[in-house]
């Protein structure tokens, strides 16, 4: 489901084994066997991670003869970038108002001292 795609992306990246797999795929596509090599864990265990990454749309598999090749999909990572802009706009707008409030908060203190000559505590 679209709603959960982004969270799925983040969750997929939360596991160190999966990160190493993605790291490996940066250098080009690989079979599940090749992906399993550096870990010393079963091919089944790696297959599970591969399935997870596939569900999160971070990689795709394609069959060539008897071998299945995994490769990186970068579009889902691009999508994850989009939410950043909306949040940034929120803060920029709010900070403009914070600026105004701070200016106002600074003033009364000065006025009290100047106008009434009250000694500061």
């Amino acid at each position: 489901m679209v709603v959960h795609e982004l969270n799925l992306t983040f969750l997929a990246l939360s596991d160190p084994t999966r990160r190493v797999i993605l790291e490996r795929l940066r250098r080009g596509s690989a079979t599940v066997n090749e992906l399993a090599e550096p870990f010393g864990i079963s091919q089944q265990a790696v297959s599970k991670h591969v399935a997870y990454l596939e569900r999160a749309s971070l990689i795709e598999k394609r069959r060539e003869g008897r071998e299945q090749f995994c490769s990186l999909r970068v579009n889902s990572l691009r999508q994850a970038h989009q939410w950043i802009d909306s949040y940034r706009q929120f803060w920029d707008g709010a900070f403009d108002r914070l600026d105004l409030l701070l200016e106002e908060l600074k003033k009364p203190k000065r006025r009290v001292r100047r106008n009434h000559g009250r000694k500061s505590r």
Partner: protein
Amino acid sequence: MDARVAERSDTRTIRIERIFDAPRELVFDAWTKPEYLLRWFAPQGCTIHFEHIDVRPGGRFHSCIYNPSFGDCWCVGVYQEIVRAERIAFSLAIADSAGNEIDAAQGGHDPQWPRETLVRVMLEDLGGSTRLTLEQNALESLARKTGAYPSWLQMLDRLDAVTRTGNG
């Protein structure tokens, strides 16, 4: 004032730096006193209302930002850390008027929005003025739940290099 957006777009972390011409204590008050938050904690043209707010570590808030174009936007959050004049951290999630967390799409937002983010505010004394650094991170909030490591940020950095070269 001087606004600088140093966005680490590669890591899904928003990082905004801004210098305010006011002492740190005052900026801190503006973030932690509800009567001040009411004055600024919403974009221009919007108003904010707190159904509930309890500014202390573990304390919760339930707020509604009214936007004339989009209507009500309810949020809930929990303060994670509050260190006077130095640091504030809180979670932020889209909610309904009853204070239940909801999916972004249910709240009428872009469905790609993460359900919950972690906002961290750091204040630095510049001798009369204050440098505020804000980081908002979807990954970190998830990382806390899943017990994962921030090393995935490095991972994303590298993946982003791939994204930029545009193969795929």
